[in-house]
């Protein structure tokens, strides 16, 4: 499912992660997503990531531009491929797969 380079571990060391998390204010799902993501990042990507948290309520225009339907949503901009992770990120396994940190 995920097209991974066999020696992805090396690449990950070199390439820093750029992540965008789209949330809706302080809704329960959003709060959970933020805390879950922070935990995952601290655990697996320590000092190797840039996280931007965007409140779609504040910037509704972004919803159309980024094709947002479901919230909260985590967008992995880099390293490629771009991935979208929906939901409050409580399923750590899936998040790690989605971020390419773990083999499927």
């Amino acid at each position: 499912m995920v097209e991974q380079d066999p020696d992805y571990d090396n690449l990950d060391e070199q390439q820093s992660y750029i992540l965008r998390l789209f949330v809706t204010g302080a809704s329960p799902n959003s709060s959970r997503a933020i805390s879950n993501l922070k935990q995952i990042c601290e655990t697996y990507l320590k000092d190797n990531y840039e996280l931007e948290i965007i409140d779609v309520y504040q910037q509704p225009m972004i919803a159309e531009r980024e094709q947002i339907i479901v919230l909260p949503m985590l967008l992995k901009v880099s390293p490629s491929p771009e991935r979208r992770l929906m939901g409050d990120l409580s399923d750590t396994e899936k998040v790690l797969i989605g971020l390419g940190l773990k083999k499927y």
Partner: protein
Amino acid sequence: MSKAKEQKMNEKYPTLPKTPTGIIGLDEITGGGIPKGRPTLVCGDAGCGKTLMSLEFIIRGAIDFDEPGVFMAFEEKTEELAMNVASLGFDLDKLQKQKKIKLDHVHIDRSEIEETGEYDLEGLFIRLSYAIDSIGAKRVVLDTLENLFSGLSNETVLRSELRRLFHWLKDKGVTAIITGERGDGKLTRQGLEEYVSDCVILLDHRVINQISTRRLRIVKYRGSLHGTNEYPFLIDEEGISVLPVTSLKLEKPVSSERITSGIPALDKMLDGRGFFKGSSILVSGTAGTGKTSIAAYFANQTCSEGKKCIYFAFEESPNQIIRNMHSIGVNLQQYVDKGLLKFFASRPTLYGLEMHLVAMYKVIKKFKPQSIVLDPITNLITVGSVSEVKSMLIRLIDFLQEEQITVMFTALTLNTIISDQTDEGVSSLVDAWLLVRDIEYNGERNRGMYIMKSRGMKHSNQVREFVITDKGLDLVDVYLGPEGVLTGSAREAQILQEQTGEVLRDYAFGRKDREISRKRKVLEAKISSLQTEFESIEEELNKVSQEEELVKQVAAKTRAEITQRRGEKG
């Protein structure tokens, strides 16, 4: 649908406010449009016109009713949509720039999505809300919302979110159309009709006998009267048009104005003045009896009075008709050039009956003719059953009567035994029925015409011979001979025979006259000779008596002289 009744109701109670869709015919069926400020579900199979109908709702709203609209497409990209409606003459890009329409393509691809926990559709709400507010939209379309179900796996969340969405749309006060694919045994695959309960419109696309017909039915319309039938609809270069021609009332206006058939002798049979205006005339007959010629004459007559006529040809091409009619001295081309006569030729199999009806309806509405010709209706049987043709014709006649358009149908009777029953079962619907039939006698075939019926006027009960020459059509009195009705050369022979008889009689009369005059002369001669004889006898007799008189006188004179003499002597 009874409009009058509905209007009466409107006066009494405040009824549901409605938003006109601007789609031809749909607003009539729904009695004014779809419910204002509420979601309406449009469902149907793939390719039945859901997207086009909803898009037309948005475009018409923006152009005709000054109500901006948001079109959220879950299936097609905005460029594709714009391209699709460009063929209908709508410029979506321009409307978007004028901020009258906002198109938004929602892209969901399961392969790009990883679900990692609880989520909701708030993004969609925000997006929609922003789109609505950015142009002040009054109308919203969500084109195949069910695509969400293929993109997202958590149905429970989706369902509760959809419920929330419909409530939210109502709160927003926008009139919305949600489209959905038809599912097995259900109106929509995901049971959207559970959420949208105010108005549900079902589109259908059926293929019967290899001919497809699109139909529309209002399954449900809470709080409003609506037409419940299945209505055919047409998608053509002007968008969608629905045909609500099923007036069940018989309250049409009537006219006692008369219009001529174009054949003076035929008018004479019809009380001397022709057909009623706005009536329907059926000309039926076997093959080659001149039905088309009668119809062409009628069209020609209408146009020569400067009125408009449409000729619906289902058998021949316009050029063929014009050429053929030229041979009997009817020049239809001049009226085509003047724009008075319009040909509308199509093979019956081109589309279904209902489509024919819609197409005719549209052309008639646009061209506003005084009379129309349908030649022949028999061919329509190839696309539908007799009962279907009949119901179609009932609706057409209804519509035409309402518009006060005179219509002439031609129909082919297939059997030689003329049945008094029906021709496509329309004979009971039409006001006048002319029958042209073959009279085969004496080794030749001639045409006889008579009026089967003609409502509301005195009409001839005589069979006339119908003659087509290169000068035109005419009706001739048939001759009744000892062996029945005489037509064609038998009639000519009869005429000749009678002429011969007349000459002979004349001759005989002359001879007798001469005889009499001769007799008279003889008699007169005899009379004069007798007269002469009598005169001579009379003269003879007179002579004798005069002599005697003379003798007497002479004797008396002599005696007196003698006496005198004797006296002197004596």
